[in-house]
């Protein structure tokens, strides 16, 4: 044992360590640790905690922001989908209305064309009828005039007496 301690003492000495200095340094270190534990470590830990807290809050805010962003993105997509649908519906409605307007326009144009054609036919028929009447009346007038001329030249007292006799037989 003595040999061992002599041996260890010898080793420490061989390493150049001074016992007294070592003890002083241990005490100084202990004091330093105590001082640091008393004054520095709490402040440092507090600072670290605050920083950790800030980091956590920032992370949470980031997550929340990310979540909000995702939510907003979804809402935007929904809005875009809705807008696309509405746009499609508007376009479809506009196409339908345009088609309807075209059909109505065609119907109106057809109706107007038919009416104009009918009026033209009616007018033509009236004109033809008027011309026929005029021709008929002029023919009657010509017949009467021709009869007057012929009778005036060919009629004699003898034929007149026969006409009167025939007339008397007819009215009796």
């Amino acid at each position, binding site marked *: 044992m003595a040999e061992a301690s002599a041996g260890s003492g010898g080793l420490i000495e061989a390493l150049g360590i001074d016992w007294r200095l070592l003890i002083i340094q241990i005490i100084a270190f202990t004091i330093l640790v105590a001082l640091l534990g008393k004054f520095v470590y709490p402040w440092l830990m507090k600072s670290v905690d605050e920083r950790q807290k800030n980091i956590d809050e920032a992370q949470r805010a980031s997550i929340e922001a990310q979540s909000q962003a995702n939510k907003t993105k979804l809402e935007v997509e929904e809005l875009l989908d809705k807008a696309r649908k509405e746009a499609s519906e508007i376009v479809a409605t506009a196409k339908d209305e345009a088609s309807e307007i075209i059909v109505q326009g065609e119907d109106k144009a057809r109706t107007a064309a038919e009416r104009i054609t009918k009026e033209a036919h009616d007018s033509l028929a009236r004109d033809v009828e008027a011309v026929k*009447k005029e021709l*008929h*009346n002029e023919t*009657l*007038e010509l*017949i*009467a005039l021709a*009869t*007057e001329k012929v*009778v*005036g030249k060919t*009629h*004699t*007292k003898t*034929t*007149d*007496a026969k*006409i*009167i*006799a025939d*007339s*008397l037989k*007819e*009215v*009796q």
Partner: protein
Amino acid sequence: MARRLSRRRVADYVATALLANDVAVLKKLAAYLIETRQTNNFDLFVRDIETVLASKGHVIGDVTSAFSLADATRKEIDAFIKNQTGATSVQLRERVDPTVLGGFRLRIPGQEHDTTVARQLTTLRTRFKKA
């Protein structure tokens, strides 16, 4: 001033007098018309007198033709009037009007027969004319 009488009554009086060969009644009629200032109605009086005469069997008719009537035609018209009215005597006033062209127009009280060519042509012009 003479009292105004109804035209019918005057006609009846004059017709009766004429049938009794009282021609002087015509002067009385003329005087009456002048006195009562009815000369403008002379034609109406004559027509009424003829109507009364017709009702008493004496018909006076107006005949218009393009040529003067032959005796045979005149007799036929006379017979026609008697047949139509039942008159015992007929007196015709004849008038020649070339514008009737042919046939005859007979006017007797209450009746008119127009078979002239001019009338028939007028009928042709009017009845068959389209409006």
